[in-house]
């Protein structure tokens, strides 16, 4: 009894001293800004993880699937996306996407981060510094632009790619990010997109499809051997994308919270189910489960769970991963052959179809217990209709603007390298460097 009371007295004394000390050191900051150390720490980590998804993740994933003469050029596209989009994001992208809540676009109040103080917060993420929220969202813009390049790998002129990327970021990504996440008309309508099924994957996938059609097929497509240079690079890239996706989907909770953990769990399970499904289909139809197939299935599962993660229960990740494997396999093999387009690295087949499927499935599986919204299975068919609407808007917007932009850029710079440069390889012709 004596021991207990002594412990209690000591604990009370410690508590009161700590409270007094805290009030002396940080009198008002914590109350007014509400910035939370755990949330901030997790979001710094998540930001780093998502940045890692582009370099080295996507750079390795993509360059492992092209031919040896185009490896550096493919990596250069990811690298350039990081450099250009980061600057543009700070200049005006963040402000137009996430500051102000107009139905179509935000404001330019925060252009070049004007007036942003250390303890400012964005209304969308009140427990982390606004600068961190801005950085985190920047990494999404970067990878989305970099994703599109996979559809036109092996043939797009670097200068045309740079111009196209700037335009695509300004006119496709920024408005979409505002509509879905920044308080725009899709957000007010209640479209569910936790981490970018519409904003990232469907927009990039459709952009890639349109770009592949406008650019035309690679020389030798369907007749010559265009087999990947080094799939081991693609496997390493997939691993980095996979881990990075924990920051992508887990970070989209914008807090170090149970919801973030649920999102990460569903994400991991969807990747596993996608890899297993794609491998199993190949095993049964072609007698061998290919490595490229398994990594494609994993990325398909990751892309598909993205909009739904944070709204669905972890076990839904398995179901969504299986559906992702089935749909994306079909898109990358049957659909692509039937319509005879050359989406070099299957940006539409994996990300476009995955993003679309996942956005719709979010409307099916959304559960109130996780994300506060119910889907079709919980008796809310309306949500599925809203999701359809989001998909349709994204499809049309990204497709139309991509088409116009390519025509516009093409009027100034040839979009494609010359036939001779294409045969020689883009590494030498665009960058004056090559792997030996």
């Amino acid at each position, binding site marked *: 009894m004596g021991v207990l009371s002594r412990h209690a007295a000591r604990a009370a004394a410690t508590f009161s001293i700590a409270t007094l000390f805290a009030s002396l050191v940080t009198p008002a900051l914590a109350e007014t800004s509400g910035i939370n150390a755990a949330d901030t720490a997790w979001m710094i980590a998540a930001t780093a993880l998502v940045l890692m998804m582009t370099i080295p993740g996507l750079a390795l994933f993509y360059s492992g699937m092209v031919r040896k003469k185009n490896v550096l050029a493919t990596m250069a596209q990811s690298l350039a996306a990081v450099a250009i989009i980061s600057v543009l994001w700070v200049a005006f992208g963040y402000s137009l996407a996430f500051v102000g809540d107009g139905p179509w676009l935000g404001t330019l109040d925060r252009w070049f981060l004007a007036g942003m103080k250390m303890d400012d917060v964005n209304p969308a993420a009140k427990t982390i510094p606004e600068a961190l929220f801005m950085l985190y969202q920047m990494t999404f813009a970067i990878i989305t632009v970099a994703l599109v390049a996979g559809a036109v790998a092996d043939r797009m002129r670097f200068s045309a790619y740079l111009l196209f990327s700037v335009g695509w970021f300004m006119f496709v990504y920024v408005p979409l990010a505002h509509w879905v996440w920044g308080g725009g008309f899709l957000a007010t309508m209640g479209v569910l997109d936790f981490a970018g099924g519409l904003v990232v994957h469907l927009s990039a996938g459709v952009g890639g499809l349109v770009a592949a059609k406008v650019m035309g097929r690679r020389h030798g497509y*369907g007749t010559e*051997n*265009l*087999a*990947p240079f080094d799939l081991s690079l693609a496997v390493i890239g997939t691993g980095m994308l996979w881990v990075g996706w924990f920051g992508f989907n887990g970070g989209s909770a914008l807090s170090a919270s149970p919801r973030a953990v649920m999102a990460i769990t569903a994400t991991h399970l969807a990747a596993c189910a996608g890899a297993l499904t794609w491998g199993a289909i190949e095993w049964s139809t*072609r007698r061998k489960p*290919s490595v*490229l*197939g398994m990594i*494609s299935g994993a990325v398909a599962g990751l892309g598909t769970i993205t909009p739904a993660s944070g709204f669905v229960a972890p076990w839904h990740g398995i179901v969504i991963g299986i559906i992702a494997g089935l749909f994306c396999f079909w898109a*990358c*093999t*049957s659909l*692509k*052959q039937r319509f005879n387009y050359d989406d070099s690295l*299957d940006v539409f*087949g994996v990300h476009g179809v995955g993003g679309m499927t996942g956005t719709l499935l979010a409307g099916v599986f959304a559960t109130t217990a996780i994300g506060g919204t119910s889907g079709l299975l919980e008796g809310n068919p309306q949500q599925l209709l809203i999701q359809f609407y989001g998909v349709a808007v994204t499809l049309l917007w990204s497709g139309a603007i991509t088409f116009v932009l390519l025509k516009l850029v093409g009027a100034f710079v040839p979009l494609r390298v010359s036939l001779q440069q294409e045969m020689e390889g883009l590494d030498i012709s665009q960058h004056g460097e090559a792997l030996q």
Partner: protein
Amino acid sequence: MKLVVAIIKPFKLDEVRQALTAIGVHGMTVTEVKGYGRQKGHTEIYRGAEYVVNFLPKLRIEIAVSSELADKAVDVITQAARTGQIGDGKIFVTPIDHALRIRTGETDSDAL
């Protein structure tokens, strides 16, 4: 003197080298090459796209031996490089007119 040229599967190199060393062949030249015979390559499938790979990786081994040793060398290479599967390779034997060791100037059989 004979020049024995063997095209073998890459993973058989160590066995072939050991077998040749055992019968007194002291040197060899190995080159990485690509080619095909009756095997006609193989098919690779990437996300549904099929590519026929005609030229398969092989190793080309060259050894210069005395005429008496040539038959023995061909025998041991045949045994060591054989898997029984298609694509095991081929051996060609040609006469050597003249041989010279660059360091010493020795010629013909002294140079082997």
